């Protein structure tokens, strides 16, 4: 366990951590390898923010190793509705997070490891980092067919993606992080990263889907634990850093002052959903009522996760005049969120006359609108 003062001062003061292998007189050998004790995606993303902002990286490198309990992580400028099946996430209790780096959507679970390479902006070099990872893999499994592509993916056997990369460039510091699939739940991964939502139009950054494979399928020796060790070892060698791994607790405000606020911010609706670039929804659904099937057309414009414009077109006379417009009007200004529809739907039901048929139709309509979100 790191002592609170040791970690912070190590990262902030221009102190030099010399290992026995550091070149004589070379301050470039300063660095740290950190590993998170938490599997909470928000806490771990908060640690990344903390290191990026607080650490003095001018002459220092930091490697951060982390794993998450099941979560989907979208890139900074992505649209979660376009990237994943939010209904399935909610059903399975899988968390949704938005990271601050760019890139596409990924599924994390404990069978996936995350590596973050922190450097000064000048020393930002993704290829170098990924080649380090490949060396670590080959150290454990010499005949492994792995290589880095020009998209900065790592592919296995020439066709299966086992690692994706994203990065963030700040004023003076930068970080590059990547995933590594050891033994993740691939069927769940495919299911959650498949969006069922139709009719979405936006200029959000889109993911590039790839076939994936777990390293454990290739070689049972490639467990998460062994991989974490191998990467740490390779990092220590490459950057002349002490190979000792310092464990950190992302919930410890004493070690990481301000970490709670950062963690909270990453969990807010405003960050996760509200940061979605403006998008429009233009779709329809079929309502089966008694013996007929009716088509309902929905058009919405969503900005900052809130519905700015809403049109719901129901065939004439199925609902009393004006009721449809009333639903559209209540939705305008609300979050594009199924819970909000539930609240609005219930609110109207309380004022509605005791007309079972009307109530049933209303519920049917609202339920289908909910499913768009």
């Amino acid at each position, binding site marked *: 366990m790191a002592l609170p003062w040791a970690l912070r001062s190590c990262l902030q003061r221009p102190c030099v951590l010399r290992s026995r292998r550091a070149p004589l007189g070379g301050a470039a050998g300063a660095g740290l390898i950190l590993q998170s004790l938490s599997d909470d995606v928000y806490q771990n993303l908060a640690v990344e923010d903390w290191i990026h902002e607080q650490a003095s990286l001018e002459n220092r490198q930091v490697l951060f190793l982390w794993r998450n309990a099941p979560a989907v992580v979208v890139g900074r400028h992505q649209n979660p509705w376009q990237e994943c099946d939010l209904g399935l996430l909610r059903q399975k209790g899988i968390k949704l997070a938005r990271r601050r780096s*760019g890139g596409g959507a990924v599924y994390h679970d404990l069978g996936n490891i995350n590596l973050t390479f922190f450097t000064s902006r000048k020393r930002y070099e993704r290829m170098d980092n990924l080649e380090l990872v490949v060396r670590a893999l080959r150290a454990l499994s010499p005949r492994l067919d792995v290589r880095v592509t020009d998209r900065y993916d790592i592919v296995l056997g020439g066709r299966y993606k086992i690692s994706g990369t994203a990065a963030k460039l700040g004023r003076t510091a930068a970080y590059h992080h990547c995933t590594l699939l050891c033994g993740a739940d691939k069927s769940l991964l495919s299911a959650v990263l498949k969006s069922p939502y139709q009719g979405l139009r936006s200029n959000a950054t889109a993911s590039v889907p790839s076939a994936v494979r777990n390293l454990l399928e290739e070689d049972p020796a490639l467990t998460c634990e062994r991989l974490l060790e191998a990467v740490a070892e390779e990092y220590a060698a490459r950057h002349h850093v002490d190979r000792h791994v310092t464990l950190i607790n992302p919930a410890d405000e004493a070690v990481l002052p301000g970490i709670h606020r950062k963690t909270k911010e990453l969990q807010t609706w405003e960050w996760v959903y509200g940061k979605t670039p403006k998008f429009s929804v233009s779709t329809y659904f079929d309502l089966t009522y008694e013996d007929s099937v009716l088509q309902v057309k929905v058009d919405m414009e969503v900005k900052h996760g809130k519905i700015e414009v809403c049109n719901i077109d129901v065939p004439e006379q199925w609902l009393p005049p004006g009721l449809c417009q009333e639903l559209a009007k209540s939705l305008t200004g609300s979050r594009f969120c199924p819970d909000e529809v539930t609240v609005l739907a219930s609110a109207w039901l309380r004022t509605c006359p005791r007309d079972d048929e009307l109530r049933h139709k209303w519920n049917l309509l609202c339920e289908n609108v909910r499913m768009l979100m």
Partner: protein
Amino acid sequence: PSAASWGVPAPPRQAPCTRAYPGVPFSCPLRTGAPRGSRKFTDKHEWISVDNGIGTVGISNFAQEALGDVVYCSLPEVGTKLNKHDEFGALESVKAASELYSPLTGEVTEINAALAENPGLVNKSCYQDGWLIKMTVENPTELDELMSEDAYEKYIKSIEE
């Protein structure tokens, strides 16, 4: 990768202006495409050009080359108040998500709507069509803290090594 690799010639290097007559403030009628105000640069590779009290902000050619193809521009709302050095948005490129920092203190008056559909304008035309935001200039003296175009050219030569 240089701008030429997209089949687009790099913006012409603009010759420094010389005084036509001693004692008379010079203007640069030969500066093609440049607005009336001269361009100033930050050490983080943003530029600002002030005209009639409104500053137009963008990123330099050096920056757009280093960034690679821009795929998304995240810009602030009109009316946002910015202090010098405040983060006002981000550019996502194939390389990374990169923050944008305000060169001056002021209020956002306009954002470049063309970038929503065509973020690549930042690469193709970083000094003209690829501008990012326009803002008021609350403290004109802050402009003096920024680099002139010549000083910026020297600066990037020094960091390119």
